[in-house]
């Protein structure tokens, strides 16, 4: 069973599912392209996963507060979008297959309630964007679906991909 780790958060993949840490030194283009934390390959789809860890036990409370303020005012949306799009282009060049891609963002903090998560999910859908132009000229989607979670809603909705916090 594969376990992927980002700081104090561990993501356990289901048996037989392959995944990799994407934003590590193997990326090779970090000077010009952003990257999501993990790419998980399922037989029929691909998951792009981004973790944010404001509740990291060693996080400075001031940094945590300013991160949450920025997140709630939509200031992090562009970062999530850029990470997705750059990873999408990278993987397109790498594999060129046509599996639908799903994008999940985990912001591991108990401060985010469902109303905030809903607002961020809707903004991410709008900004990625999930839908193409109204003219209908897009023949395919650049992202199939997306969702923003906190630790509790992640484990509730994605029990096959459990995330746990480990000691630093």
């Amino acid at each position: 069973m594969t376990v992927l780790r980002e700081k104090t958060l561990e993501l356990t993949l289901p048996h037989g599912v392959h995944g990799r840490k994407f934003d590590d030194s193997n990326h090779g283009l970090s000077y010009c392209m952003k990257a999501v934390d993990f790419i998980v390959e399922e037989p029929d789809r691909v998951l792009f996963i981004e973790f944010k860890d404001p509740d990291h036990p060693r996080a400075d409370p001031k940094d945590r507060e300013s991160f949450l303020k920025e997140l709630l005012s939509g200031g992090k949306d562009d970062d999530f979008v850029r990470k997705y799009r750059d990873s999408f282009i990278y993987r397109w060049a790498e594999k060129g297959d046509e599996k639908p891609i799903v994008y999940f963002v985990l912001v591991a903090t108990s401060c985010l309630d469902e109303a905030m998560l809903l607002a961020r999910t809707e903004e991410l859908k709008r900004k990625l964007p999930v839908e193409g132009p109204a003219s209908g000229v897009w023949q395919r989607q650049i992202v199939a679906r997306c969702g923003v979670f906190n630790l509790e809603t992640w484990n509730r909705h994605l029990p096959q991909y459990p995330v746990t916090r480990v000691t630093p």
Partner: protein
Amino acid sequence: MTITRIKFENFTVFKKLDIQPCPGINVLLGANGTGKTHIMKVVYAACDISKTQVDFAEKLIRVYLPSGRALGRLVKRGQGSKRGAVEIHRDATKLRISFSNHATVSDSATVIGVKEWTSQPIESVYIPVKEMLSNAPGFRSLYSQREVHFEEIYADILDRAYRPALRGPVDRERKKLLTKLEKFIDGKVTIKDEEFFLRNKQGNLEFTLLAEGMRKLGMLWLLIQNGTLLNGSVLFWDEPETNLNPKLFGPLIEILLELQRMGVQVFLATHDYVILKEIDLRRSSEDKILFHSLYRDDAGEIQCDSTSEYLKIHPNAIAETFADLYNREIKRSLGEIGI
């Protein structure tokens, strides 16, 4: 001296309820029919009679308008003869009214503590859900001369709004609030022949031509300017979010927090998440805020759970609605991709 305790027994929807408000902002939450407005009306009636010295039972009739003006209809419905009672406390001072469900007139009620209660008058104002300033011309005279079927809170709010400005210079805190409001409504409110206008560089704009949300902020401006909302006043506001653009909720909450810091006790009934969250995000640690969550227990009776912390509000019907929407949104995402 602020309202410190409200007790109900077989009154309207309450079988037995005991609420201890804080001296600052009291936010009443709960699904429809859990009695938020009833609580505010009864406390408002008690505050109002402390100044006007109107009979408490009579004021309750005028504020609730039970059918046939029968006081007994305010007793919680049930079989047989019953008595309803309400108690409002300001520290040791207590006003109590009780009456039977057969009571048809106000005289049949028993009221205790009126003398002491009215010896310390409280300034109060009740802002109802429906905006009234635009309907003001002629309404007051019609209300005083005819039996019109309007709860008295609508006439009372106009009485407050028509008050002339306070004499003397405006103190710094009030000036700051008035300037803030003038920025949002883009002008000042003036009254001419019982008609309200917004005055700015373009001239006088009648209230009927203003957005309803703006009229509400204009009302608040008037109440601060004429000194109705001062240290020691009590403000009741039923669903301030109605017809107001959510972008104005933040500034509105900022003004309510300032009023609270000046010593105004506030009662607020809301169904809106943004209002709640704005209070949570804008409050400082010194602000006195209490959330009162009204709900029905397993027996169907109304209970109240009070907390000063937003995350501890339970049950929170508003947040639960968002949780439900979020869950369905995520399920849709996951369901369509077959995870």
